[in-house]
């Protein structure tokens, strides 16, 4: 995916606010790219433009043939249907791609099991904890036959321990089922532990300040590893 000269403005109280202007970025296929930047720099807007949730003022997004098609979006909130069970919440996103109900339920259950919630398939979202709800959202995002996944700080609202277990769950699912992932966060550590490439962004107007490719395998990454610590510390220079 290549982002070419994207611009977007909003009208706030009759004044035009330029959120993105001429922003360009190349995103590697089937890899995790983390975008790290200060709050309010326009990361979320960028993700919403890519996902088609907002209209683009100018510029365009180029997708190669393998990347074309629907996209998954992991929002900051789980955004589950509160009146439907965990199973139905996941099964609904498979309706377009799998016509037979039995197969669909089986497939949905596979993803629910992968995030460790098979026992809770018949539960309603409000019977689950916040972390469990976000797990359901992850299962749903992976169940959806998307080539590109957009993550808008989906772990942000959780405490650090829970957060880490969700990052692990996400990585496990992704390793089994690689797609192009564009992940925005302001947590540098999380970005370095998760991504194949970390992109450092500036304040508005958002620009790419520096890119950090990470060659180490995810299992070797540890804050105690000197090589990794070195890489990590470069970010703050």
């Amino acid at each position, binding site marked *: 995916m290549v982002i070419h000269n994207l611009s977007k403005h909003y009208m706030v109280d009759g004044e035009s606010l330029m959120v993105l202007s001429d922003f360009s970025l190349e995103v590697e296929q089937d890899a995790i790219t983390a975008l790290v930047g200060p709050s309010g720099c326009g990361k979320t807007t960028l993700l919403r433009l890519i996902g088609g949730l907002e209209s683009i003022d100018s510029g365009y997004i180029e997708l190669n043939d393998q990347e074309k098609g629907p996209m998954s979006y992991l*929002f900051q909130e789980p955004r589950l249907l509160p009146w439907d069970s965990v199973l139905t919440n996941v099964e609904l996103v498979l309706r377009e791609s799998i016509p037979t109900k039995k197969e669909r339920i089986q497939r949905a259950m596979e993803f629910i099991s992968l995030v460790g919630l098979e*026992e809770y398939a018949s539960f309603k979202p409000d019977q689950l904890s916040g972390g469990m709800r976000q797990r359901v959202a992850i299962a749903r995002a992976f169940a959806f036959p998307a080539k590109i996944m957009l993550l808008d700080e989906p772990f942000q609202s959780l405490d650090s321990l829970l957060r880490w277990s969700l990052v692990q769950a996400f990585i496990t699912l992704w390793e089994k089922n690689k797609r192009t992932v564009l992940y925005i966060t302001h947590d540098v550590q999380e970005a370095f532990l998760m991504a194949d490439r970390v992109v450092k962004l500036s304040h508005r107007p958002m620009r790419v300040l520096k890119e950090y490719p990470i060659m180490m395998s995810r299992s070797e990454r540890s804050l105690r590893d000197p090589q990794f610590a070195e890489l990590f510390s470069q970010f703050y220079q």
Partner: protein
Amino acid sequence: MPRSTLATKVVVVLSLLLLLGVWHIGSLVLDAQVILPTPSKTFSAFITLLQYKPLSVNLLTTVGRALKSFLIIVTVGSVLGIIAGYKPLFSAALQPLLVMCKAIPVMSIILLAFIWFSSGTVPLFSAFLMGFPVMFVQVEEGVRLISEDLSEMSHMYHFSQKDRIMHLIIPSLTPSLITGAKASLSMVWKVVIAAEVLTVPRYGVGSRMQLAQINLETAEVLAWTLIAILLTALGDVLFIAMLQLPKRFRELKTKHFERVHGHS
């Protein structure tokens, strides 16, 4: 609503007894059965009514009118309310009609309707004009309250139109539909009976009330009133029971799921 404890139940019963006591003493003081019959006289008139043959015809005709107008109100109010919730221009176009419906006194609607329609149609027409705005406003507001976040999610994950309606719009609107339906149902009873009183169609609780009033059968007027109250209460009870059905059904489904998937 306060929780129904033994204490609240006792208070309700005592308050009811107090009302009956005031009524009884009042009628003894007035000492004129034409103006205010005693509760026991009213009750025996009520029993006589229950044994009286055409009761069921009158009752069923009124219930039929109320149900018919209720169904029309719920259907038209929901459909137009949903459209108005999504289309501001449509909502604006309906505003004058709504303001009019809310401002016109019930009695002038009934009197005008009686000039235009036959006496059997007047209760339906009047009930519709009175109940429709209540339903409409609730549903329209309900549409505005549908979560923007969930809507976005449903588009992102390519929900079909049918799934969007079944899994997002209808469940989101359910509370508004229930509130609107409940409010218009209790309104419908009152308007239908009022219209019957004024237009006196051949059958109907209101027609009987009117006849009893002309004959100065005050106890019978009160007995018919008691029937009207019971009808409203029964309507409420049936309505609430109906709402419990899907919940019961869901519980059964969950139990079934747990049996099949071996979760206890």
